[in-house]
Structure formats: structure tokens, C-alpha cells
């Protein structure tokens, strides 16, 4: 049933990569609804997930329209297996850092740190992509940049509050940062070979261009939050853009896809 989207359209491949980041991040964030430390936070993370889901829908609809034969956003969301997704590994891992813990366990420190990394990256990415040569990607980016700006603000406020908070909150946020930081590098890794021409054509943003502004922005927030910036791992951790994923993505997709796969073609 799940046939890989043809690589015939590099633009579709790029839209799928960015769309999968948003889709998987949205699904993960949704796990906080009714489980966050405050009711306002249930609402906030739910809203952020909704923004990301909207961005994913625009990107995957566009990607699907470029494929031959065309595929709908639902085809791409519900009928691809993990190996066909192109999201970075940053967004797919569970919310717990303890490998022995139940994967359903959630650490709010991980949530705020990961959201800060993701939103800072997406903000720099979309800020550039809105001036890109592809009008649809530029339009999606011009909307998204304003939304992720709010996500970044929100994550920043929490990282400042918890980083420069109690001994316990500081310890947990630092621990989360140490675990999340290595996954940042994948965001700056070169695009896969079949997409690399898009950078020269100004359709895609060169990931390497984002390293300096993203790192500078994060470093400023982390310093103010009295957190220590971890060492650069020196190599990309994770190869999600090539379809290599952690087992956590399989479990996430089971949740995301179960209804569509149990009732193929159902409408309501």
C-alpha cells in the first residue's frame, strides 16, 4: 500500500521534508494536551501543535500535488511508513530521556528545550524561505514565520523561568538541553543529494546558512537562563532526512495512522 513518493520532483521532496517535521512535531506536542503542568500550558502546546499541523497540511498538500500520480495530504500523512518520512529526528523522540522509562512518560523540561530548538530553527528557516523562488513555499513560509515567532517566544519564557529557577528545574532543563543539543546538528546538515539543486535555484534554504543565526539566538537565551551550552558533537546525529528514524517514530505513526488504516477511505 505504501509506495514511496517518486523522487521525480525535488520541490515535492523538500516540501515533504519540512512538512514531515511539522506533522511529527504536531503529533508529539499533542501528547501534552491534558498532561501539561498547567491548564494554560495544555492550551498553549495544543495551539502550537495546531499551528504546526496547519503548516504540515499546506506543505504536504503542495507536495502531493507535484507527485505523479498526485497524492492528497491524507495519503501522505496516513499511508507512508516510518522509512518514507523525512522529518529530522529532533521532533520524533519521546518526551522522556530515561531509556528505562515508559515511553509515555513525559518530562516538561524536554518539551520546553525541544520547542525552543525547533522554533528557533523554523523561524530562521521560514524567514528566508518567504523570499524563496517557489511562490507556494514562500507563501506557506510567510504565514508560518509569524506563528513560529510566537512558539519561540513561548519556549524562551519557559527556558528562562526554569533554567534560572529552582535547583531542580535548572538541573532538569540542563539535562534536557544536554540530550537535545546533539540533534540540532541534523538541522544544518546538507540536504540529500536529490534535493541539493534546490538551494542554487533559491527554492530551498541552504541548511548550513542557518547554523550561525540559530546557534547565536539559542546561545543568548541559554546564557540568560544560566544554562551551559553543550559541546558541539561535531557530526550530525540522526539521518531522518534520508528516512532513518528511531523506533519512537513507529509508535508515533501507529497512533497517528490507526484510524485511517483501520477504516480505509472512511469519510465523515
Amino acid at each position: 500500500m505504501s509506495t514511496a513518493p517518486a523522487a521525480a520532483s525535488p520541490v515535492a521532496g523538500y516540501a515533504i521534508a519540512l512538512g514531515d517535521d511539522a506533522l511529527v512535531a504536531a503529533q508529539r506536542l499533542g501528547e501534552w494536551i491534558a498532561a501539561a503542568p498547567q491548564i494554560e500550558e495544555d492550551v498553549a502546546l495544543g495551539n502550537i501543535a495546531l499551528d504546526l499541523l496547519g503548516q504540515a497540511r499546506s506543505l504536504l498538500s503542495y507536495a502531493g500535488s507535484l507527485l505523479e500520480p498526485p497524492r492528497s495530504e491524507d495519503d501522505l500523512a496516513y499511508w507512508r511508513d516510518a522509512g518514507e518520512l523525512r522529518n529530522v529526528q529532533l521532533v520524533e523522540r519521546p518526551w522522556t530521556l530515561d531509556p528505562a522509562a515508559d515511553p509515555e512518560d513525559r518530562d516538561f523540561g524536554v518539551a520546553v528545550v525541544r520547542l525552543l530548538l525547533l522554533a528557533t530553527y523554523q523561524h530562521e528557516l521560514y524567514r528566508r524561505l518567504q523570499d524563496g523562488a517557489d511562490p507556494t513555499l514562500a507563501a506557506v513560509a510567510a504565514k508560518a514565520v509569524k506563528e513560529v515567532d510566537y512558539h519561540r517566544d513561548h519556549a524562551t519564557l519557559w527556558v528562562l523561568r526554569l533554567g534560572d529557577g529552582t535547583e531542580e528545574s535548572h538541573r532538569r532543563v540542563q539535562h534536557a538541553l544536554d540530550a537535545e543539543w546533539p540533534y540540532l546538528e541534523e538541522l544544518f546538515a546538507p540536504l540529500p543529494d536529490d534535493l541539493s539543486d534546490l538551494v542554487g535555484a533559491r527554492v530551498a534554504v541552504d541548511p548550513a546558512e542557518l547554523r550561525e543565526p540559530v546557534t547565536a539566538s539559542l546561545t543568548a537565551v541559554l546564557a540568560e537562563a544560566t544554562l551551559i551550552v553543550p559541546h558541539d558533537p561535531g557530526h550530525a546525529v540522526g539521518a531522518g532526512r534520508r528516512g532513518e528514524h528511531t523506533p519512537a517514530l513507529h509508535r508515533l505513526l501507529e497512533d497517528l495512522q490507526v484510524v485511517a488504516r483501520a477504516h480505509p477511505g472512511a469519510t465523515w
Partner: protein
Amino acid sequence: MVTTLARQDAWTIAAGVADPEIPVVSIEDLGILREVRVGPDGHVQVVITPTYSGCPAMEAIRADVLAAFERAGHTDVEVQLVLAPAWTTDWITETGRRRLEEFGIAPPVRGAAAGREGSAPVSLTLAVRCPQCGSPETRELSHFGSTACKSLWVCTACKEPFDHFKPL
């Protein structure tokens, strides 16, 4: 004989559609309705734009626009969704602002959207007046409220919580 709608009449029909989440304001008041075109053959094209990428009201708005035209006797209607240019709260009309406030939602401060981009996270926020008592002594509880387009505030004068249509 087929009667062709005048463009202004078509606009009026579309502009009468209320926002499904905040029914005191129309899609025109909110700046969601971007364009109405009537072809020489009478085909009507209504162009709308979402407030936020994930706004779940778009499908309802599309259906409501089609229903409004059908009630007026026109079925050759298409609703087109565009993303560019990106919606901004600066497109909310004066009427829209007044109605939001009467409904208990503090409208966005005019021009605040333009000044937002690149702002520091804990920057000064322009005073948002409490829609209940009018006091400027208010504070934000959360960037995110009951819908994507609103943030959650509380008035320190009358102690009432309220929604604010946040600048975008």
C-alpha cells in the same frame, strides 16, 4: 434567463457570513474575505485567507459562504483559499474592532503586528485595555488562548480574565 450578479451584490452576500468562532464579527470585519469576482458567465469566485495556518474554521467558512449564495439563489460559486499575502490583524476593520470589544475580546492594538517581528520575548507590550471595565491595568496570562488567534489576559483592576485578539 440567467441573471448575473453584480460584483457589489456578490460581495455583500459573502461579507454577511459570520465568523464561526466569533459570530459577532463577519469574515469581512476580520479581513478573511479578500476578493469576490463575478465572471461574464455569472460564475462567482470568493477568495478567503486563513488567520492561522491551522485555523480549523476555514472549512466551516467555506461551507457557510456557499450556503449564503445558495440562499440568495446562486449555486455557480467557488471558494478559493489563498495563503499570500499572509493575513495580519491590521486587516481587521474598525467595525470589527468595535464588535470584538463589545463581545468581550480586546482587539489588537493597531499597527502592533508590524512591530512584532523580531521583538524580544519579554519586550514591552502595548497596553491592552480590559474590554469589561476599560482599565489599561492588564497582564498577559498566556500567549495562547481559546483559539489560535487569541491570547489569555487578566485585568488587575476588575480581576476578570479576558481574551485578546493577538497581533499577527
